[in-house]
């Protein structure tokens, strides 16, 4: 299961994004400041955008799950139950896990953004897609929900999970780091070595030496962040 990016280029108005690389199984973080092109890349990987130049190939991927930055844009049904069904998931299980039992007849657009994000995240995770794309997944979630999401992501195996985020205050265990800088997608390497190449690592990692980082990551392997 992998994605091959061969000198791709996307141009949207005055904005352009270029890059190459191979995306293998594991959890990838694509980090970059607001407006750098993370959503464009997510749309590209989801197959909703076609690169102007270059090739994008997906091998062994049949099921894609994509949570957009604004989950309300993904709603296509009038009730919460119908919305979960529209993703091919079991409403009873999803509603139980999302703490929304008894609300299946409610309008999904009446949910708060946090509740909606939680609902769609759990729906997508239950579908267990080969490729899971999460665009700014932690925005709008409280601390408890963030931890729960991290736990769920850690439980995923034999699949590709890609997180697109500008926020590194809380993260699951990351296997590979990518950055977008000035319209270029740059592969920084596997963790924890990639931290030394990260242009803007989180403050809590900046002060820790490389040696202690290795210990930290191997200790946390398989656990919550």
């Amino acid at each position, binding site marked *: 299961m992998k994605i091959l990016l061969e000198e791709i280029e996307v141009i949207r108005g005055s904005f352009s994004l270029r890059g190459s690389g191979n995306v293998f199984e594991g959890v990838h973080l694509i980090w970059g400041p607001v407006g750098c092109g993370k959503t464009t890349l997510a*749309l590209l990987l989801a197959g*909703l955008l076609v690169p102007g130049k270059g090739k994008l190939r997906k091998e062994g991927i049949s099921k*894609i799950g*994509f949570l957009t930055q604004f989950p309300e*844009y*993904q*709603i*296509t049904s009038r009730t919460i139950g*119908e919305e979960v069904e529209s993703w091919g998931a079991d409403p009873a299980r999803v509603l139980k896990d999302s703490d929304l039992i008894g609300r299946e007849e409610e309008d999904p*657009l009446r949910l708060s953004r946090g509740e909606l994000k939680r609902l769609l995240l759990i729906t997508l995770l239950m579908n267990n897609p080969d490729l899971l794309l999460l665009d700014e997944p932690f925005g709008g979630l409280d601390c408890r929900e963030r931890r729960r999401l991290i736990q769920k992501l850690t439980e995923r195996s034999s699949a590709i999970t890609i997180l697109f985020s500008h926020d590194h205050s809380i993260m699951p265990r990351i296997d590979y780091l990518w950055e977008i800088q000035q319209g270029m997608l740059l592969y920084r390497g596997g963790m924890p070595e990639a931290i030394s190449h990260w242009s803007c690592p989180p403050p809590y990692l900046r002060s820790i030496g490389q040696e202690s980082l290795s210990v930290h990551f191997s200790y946390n392997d398989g656990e919550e962040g």
Partner: protein
Amino acid sequence: MKDARLRFLSVVALSIASFMSVVAAMLTVGWWFIHEKQKRVIFRSIPFWIYLGIIGFFGLVIQVESGGGLSYILRLGAIALLAAWTYREFRSGEFLEVAVWIFGKKVGFELGLVAEMSIQGLRVLEEDIERIRMALILKGRRGWVRTLPTTLSLLLMVTLRRADAQASLLALRGYQKGGELCPEFSRQSRELLSGSAALAIFFLALFLTLLV
């Protein structure tokens, strides 16, 4: 056409002319071909072709029932082309500026604001449709006919809710009636010639109609 006043004047004159006479409708299409540099953009517009299809269908029915369907298609087709062009050329704030310039700061501002909000609502609706289309692709539901009722009701609800939020925002900001605006317009030298040509087509259509 940079000057919104001339553009609106030309569009109104050409629309009336096209409605009145087939010759004027054909001249209008010619006028558009001369002025539009990016013709492909409009020809690639799906709503434009849907609208033309509807006109074609009713034109055909008229032709079969009583004759005159071809004239209907030509006249309404020219108006549809003008409408698509106006919509594409529109820049945010132009309706407000033109309405204030014509009708003043009270009535003009009100009319302009309504027009602005309507056009912006259409633009947002376009974005909503695109997002729903993407969501349906992600869900693997490609049969648009089956999802059409749900999609339409969802769009209606979202639009109503947005209008409600917009009205609340205006009320919250203390909006009651009219407003202050000093419209500014700029134009290129050839635009006067284009406006004059549009008026000439209008008067020709008027003359032809009176002659008949």
